[in-house]
């Protein structure tokens, strides 16, 4: 027990001092292994890293990040935004609705909350403010919509979860899709109802500006067809079992290159920007994973993990109470830690508990991610809010963003309750998948 407490104590102290997560976790893992078992045990570190390097499932991460980078740098995402705005402009609150839809589509292309919020913030926010949308509604929509990036597949976090606990990544992807659509639907319904009741929050786009001839609209629509096709192809090939998630992401990246080439935006500079940008993101994510793997290896070998499981089970609480308590811990961690780190650290500890309580690990994986959505928005350290603040105009303060996000956080809690009451919302699609 003392090993466990000490490991986490040092972990939090070092993190608060601003030590990068990768060095914190691996250093603690190494030092405790040295103390507990001496220098002979250190080959453990190399073996854990070797597991990550040799994992077939993880190749989805670089390939998917590469796909997103190519699409973003070749201007395909800009076209997408334009088309959605033109089509959604003429309804009350239409721009906010368009923003949520855009976030959901970008989530399927980009897969990181940072990229999703930044792009939407740069493009959608000035647009909504220009047409006199309520500031809080506009900010909240972007912060919450952008956070969907981790829930709607292909999501990097699901790949990491699947690899750390040994569950099917394809099933997680497809389950996340159901949850993401429900959550996005809740956001849309909320915006439409609220703007219907209070038209001043989301006024109509003025007639003369909003009117775009239908031929123009159709041309814009054809512009986004390739990227929509790409999304469907990636998800479809996973759903029907034609390709593994890793292969599907590779095909997606190849498709993104073709899309960029067709629209004549594929040049040396775009390619270099995409490749280098991917390298940076991969370096960031994978070293967090390496470090957390070392930490967890020591943690498990010292017997702390099974001790914790037995301790929780010996409490003999109602299993839903334990589940809600676990979610509360995730929420607290999510306020301070990076989400990839939370998954590698917490999933190996919580999933055995969840399994022995008789819950479905796929369902828990998706629920885990919905909890992280909440963590992205919650003050004091909502990452989604930080990303948005970085690109928002000066008169939009962090307090404004948090205030705007609040209704969406309520919706997220509603969604968590829904998923707990009706697990089938998440599980029905994975069951239909080709095995």
């Amino acid at each position: 027990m003392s090993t466990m407490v000490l490991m986490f104590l040092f972990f939090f102290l070092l993190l608060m001092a601003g030590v990068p997560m990768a060095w914190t976790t691996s250093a603690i893992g190494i030092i405790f292994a040295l103390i507990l078992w001496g220098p002979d045990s250190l080959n453990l570190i190399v073996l854990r890293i070797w597991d990550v390097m040799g994992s077939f499932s993880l190749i989805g991460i670089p390939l998917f990040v590469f796909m997103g980078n190519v699409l973003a740098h070749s201007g395909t995402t800009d076209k997408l935004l334009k088309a959605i705005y033109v089509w959604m402009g003429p309804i009350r609150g239409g721009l906010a609705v368009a923003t949520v839809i855009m976030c959901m589509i970008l989530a399927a292309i980009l897969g990181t909350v940072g990229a999703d919020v930044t792009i939407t913030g740069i493009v959608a926010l000035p647009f909504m403010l220009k047409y006199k949308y309520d500031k809080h509604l506009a900010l909240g929509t972007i912060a919450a919509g952008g956070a969907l990036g981790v829930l709607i597949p292909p999501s990097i976090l699901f790949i990491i979860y699947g690899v750390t606990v040994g569950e099917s990544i394809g099933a997680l992807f497809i389950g996340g899709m159901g949850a993401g659509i429900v959550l996005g639907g809740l956001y849309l319904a909320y915006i439409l109802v609220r703007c219907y009741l209070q038209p001043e929050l989301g006024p109509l786009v003025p007639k003369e500006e909003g009117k775009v001839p239908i031929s123009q609209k159709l041309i814009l629509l054809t512009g986004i067809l390739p990227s929509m096709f790409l999304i469907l192809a990636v998800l479809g090939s996973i759903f029907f079992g034609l390709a593994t998630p890793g292969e599907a992401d590779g095909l997606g990246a190849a498709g993104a290159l073709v899309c960029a080439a067709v629209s004549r935006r594929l040049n040396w500079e775009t390619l270099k920007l995409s490749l280098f940008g991917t390298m940076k993101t991969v370096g960031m994510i994978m070293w967090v994973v390496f470090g957390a793997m070392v930490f967890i290896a020591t943690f498990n070998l010292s017997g702390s993990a099974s001790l914790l499981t037995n301790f929780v089970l010996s409490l003999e609480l109602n299993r839903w109470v334990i589940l809600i308590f676990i979610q509360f811990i995730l929420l607290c961690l999510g306020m301070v830690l990076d989400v990839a780190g939370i998954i590698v650290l917490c999933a190996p500890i919580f999933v055995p508990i969840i399994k022995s309580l008789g819950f479905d690990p796929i369902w828990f994986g998706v629920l885990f991610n919905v909890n992280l959505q909440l963590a992205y928005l919650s003050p004091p350290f909502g990452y989604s809010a930080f990303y948005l603040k970085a690109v928002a105009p000066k008169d939009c303060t962090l307090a404004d963003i948090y205030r705007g996000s609040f209704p969406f956080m309520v919706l997220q809690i509603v969604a968590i309750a829904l998923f707990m009451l009706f697990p089938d919302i998440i599980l029905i699609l994975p069951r239909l998948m080709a095995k």
Partner: protein
Amino acid sequence: MKSKEVLEEVGMGNKERRRGFNLDHIGQLQGKLFSIFFLVATMQVTLEVIMRYVFNSPTSWGLDLSIYLCGVTYVMGGGYTQTFNEHIRVDIFYSRWSERTRAIVDLILGDCLFLFVCGILVWQSSTWAWESFLIKETAGTVWDPPIYPFKSILVLGSVLLLVQAFSKIVKDFKVVTNRTRGNS
């Protein structure tokens, strides 16, 4: 032409070029060089799927190769990301400190741990890769390629990361000493 900020974010701006040679250039070079593997892996995975469905003859080496290509980038990305000092950290307090305070705290804590981890990695990975080389270990898969070259990549990556650890220490040290001189 992309904006300057976008280019500088991945080390393609002029800022990097203007300075004379420093250790960061090694990290930049390793990242940019190995990033081509993403393109190769993309094409290779596509080829593999085409071979399987169109020609009905999946290759024996496709799976292993895509894993190795990506595995190399994970290791090499560490040093590259470090040159931008963008490894993920909790910056609740960190972001509020002055540049000098950050450098001091990093020198005392972060850099020491970084150096320590790199040192252990270099030591452990080299003995491990050497053993693999001595027995001419192979992967044991259908393709069964020799595995020690891939294992040596981890050694190379660890050494390069160690270089970046020194670079970070030098940079922090400069920040601390420069300010002291400026104030006196």
